[in-house]
C-alpha cells in the first residue's frame, strides 16, 4: 500500500508539472471559443481528483500481484532487462540491426534462463533471420550499421 501511495504522489507531481506547462498554451490567434488549453486542464483536474480519491481509498489489489512478490533478485533482473532494451535502442542504428539484435538476443536469452550455447545460437539465428524477413522480404528498411561496408 505504501508503494502505491508513493506512486500516486509521484503522479500528482507529474500532473502539477503538466498543468503548469498547460497554462502557458495560448493560441496566437483563434477562430474558436475553446483554445488548446481547456481540454488538457479539464483532464488534469479530473485526474488529480481521481488520484486523491485513490490515496484515501486504495481498494484491494489483484491476486495476480500477491503471488509474485517483488524480491530484490527479481527487481535486479527487471532492471537488467530494461537496461538491455535501452542499450539495444541506443546501438540499433550505431551498430546496425544485425549486430545489436545478436547481442541483445543473447542478453535476453540469458536473462530468461537460456544456456550460453543456446543463447548464442538463438541470437545468431534470430538476428539474421529477422533481418532477411523484414528488410528483404517485407520491405521494412533496417539499418546495417557497421556491416554496411560488406555490401550484403
Amino acid at each position, binding site marked *: 500500500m505504501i508503494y502505491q501511495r508513493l506512486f500516486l504522489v509521484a503522479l500528482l507531481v507529474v500532473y502539477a508539472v503538466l498543468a503548469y506547462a498547460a497554462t502557458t498554451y495560448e493560441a496566437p490567434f483563434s477562430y474558436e*471559443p475553446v483554445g*488548446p488549453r481547456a481540454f*488538457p486542464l479539464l483532464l488534469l483536474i479530473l485526474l488529480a481528483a481521481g488520484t486523491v480519491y485513490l490515496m484515501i481509498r486504495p481498494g484491494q489489489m489483484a491476486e495476480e500481484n500477491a503471488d509474485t512478490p517483488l524480491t530484490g533478485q527479481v527487481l535486479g533482473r527487471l532492471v537488467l532487462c530494461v537496461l538491455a532494451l535501452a542499450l539495444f535502442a541506443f546501438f540499433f542504428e550505431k551498430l546496425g540491426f544485425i549486430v545489436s539484435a545478436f547481442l541483445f538476443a543473447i542478453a535476453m536469452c540469458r536473462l*530468461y534462463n537460456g544456456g550460453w550455447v543456446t543463447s548464442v545460437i538463438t541470437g545468431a539465428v534470430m538476428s539474421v533471420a*529477422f533481418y532477411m524477413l523484414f528488410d528483404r522480404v517485407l*520491405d521494412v528498411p533496417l539499418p546495417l550499421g557497421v556491416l554496411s561496408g560488406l555490401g550484403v
Partner: protein
Amino acid sequence: METLGYLGQGFGVATTPLNLFTALCGTLIGTVVGLLPGLGPINGVALLIPIAFALGLPPETSLILLAAVYLGCEYGGRISSILLNIPGEASAVMTALDGHPLARQGKGGIALSISAAGSFTGGLIATIGVTIFAPLLAKWAVAFGPAEYFVMMVFAITCLAGMAGNKPMKTAVASLIGLLLACVGIDANSGVYRFTFGSLGLADGIQFVVLVLGLFSISEILVLLERTYYGQSALKTSGRMMFNMKEAMLVKWTVLRSGVVGFFMGILPGAGATMASAVAYMSEKRMATKDNRFGNGDLRGLAAPETANSAAACGSMVPMLTLGVPGSGTTAVMLGALTLYNITPGPMLFQTDPQLVWGLIASLFIANVMLVVMNIPLIRVFTKILAVPYWALVPGIAIVTAIGVYGVHATTFDLFLMIVIGVVGYILRKFDFPLSAVLLGFILGGIMEQNLRRALSISNGELSILWSSPITWGGWALVVLMLVLPMYRGWRRRRAAVPANP
C-alpha cells in the same frame, strides 16, 4: 433485404483468393499467439499492424487479417487455460476455472472440442447480430453531430469505468491518462505544441504503434521475466477428443444464452470479452440448480465463458464500425490501424467503404468456420507449441516489437519512448490499473477533444449545446447510470459486509 445484398457483396470481397489466404494465415497466427502464455489478442494484433502495413496490403485485407487474428486468439487462449491453467489473457480466466479441472480428470480432449464448438456458436450468433444491428446503428448514427459524438465518448469512458467491477476509480484514472496522452504533440486547431517540452520526436504526438507496443509488449516481457518458470508441464490430451450427443445436449441452452449475452456485452464500449465471459459464467452458475459442479469441471462452466468471449469479440466490432468507438482493447488497436490507412471509422464508413465493412463482416463468418475446422484435427499440433520455452519466445517478441516501432518513423527516439512507456505501463499494471483503459482513452482522446471544440464553435461557446438534443439527453442519462452503478454496487457490498462481521 438490402442487408443481404450487401452481405453477398461482402462475401464477394472476402472470398477473393488473397483475402481467403489472409484469413487462413490470420486464424493460424491468432491461434498460436493466443495459446502462447502471456500473449493475448492485443499483442498479436499490435505486432501485426506494422507487418500488414509493410506488406502493402489493401485496407480491407489488412482489416480481415487483424480480425482473423483477434478471433484466432480467442480460440487459442482456451488451450493454455485448459491444459496449463495459465490464461493467456484476462478473458480466458473464467475458462480455466472449469476447463483445467476437466483436463485433470482426463477429459482434456472433450473440453477442447466442446469449447471450440462453443466458440464457434458464439461467434456465429454474434456475427449474425453484427449483420443485423450494425447497419441499423450506422443509419441512426449519421444524425450525430459533434455534441452527440462528444456525449457518446463521455459515455464510452464512464462505461469503461462503470463496468470495471471492483476497480472503477483505477479504470477511470487509467482512461484519463490515455486521454491526456492523446493531447501530446501539435494541436491541429491552433498549431500550439502541447506537452512536447521542446522534443522534436514528440511534435507529431505519440505514435499509436509506439504506445500499444510499449504498453502491451514491453510490459508483458517484464511480467514474463517475473514469472520465468522452468519445466511447465502441459496436461496430456488422451482418450476421446470429440464430445458426444449427450454432452452437446447438456450445454445446448448454455451456449445459446451465453452467445447472446456475449454479443450484447461486446457492443457496450469498454466492457468487452473479459466482462462478457465473467457475466455469462456467473449467470449460468446461478441458473444451474441440479447437479451443479461448477468449479470442479462442469461442461456448462466451460462452455459459457468460451462462447461469451468469442461472441463479445465479434460484438465489439459493432461500435467500432458504426461509431468509431472501440468496444475493446483489441478493436481499439484495429481502429488505430484504420487511421493509418487514412480511413475515418464512423457511420459514414458504411456508405463510403461498403466493401471494407461488408468484407470484414463476411470474413468474420469465414474465419469462424476456418477456426472450428482447423481446431479439432490440429489440436495435437497446437498443444506441442505450448512447450516453447521463454528463452526462445521472449527475445523473438522483443526484436519484432523493436522492428515494428522502428518501422514507423525510422528513428531510435521512438524506441526509447516505447521503453519508457513500457516501464510506466508495467508499474501501472503492478498497481492494478488496467492498461486497455489507457489505450481506449488514447484512441478516444483526439476525437473527443475535436468534437467538443467543434460543438462549442458551432454554438459560439455556449455550453448548453451539449445537452440540447434528445440524443444527448439519452447519452447523459446513460452516463449518469454508469456513474451511479459502481456506487450502488459498493454500497450494497458494504451493506452485505456489515452483518458478516459486526
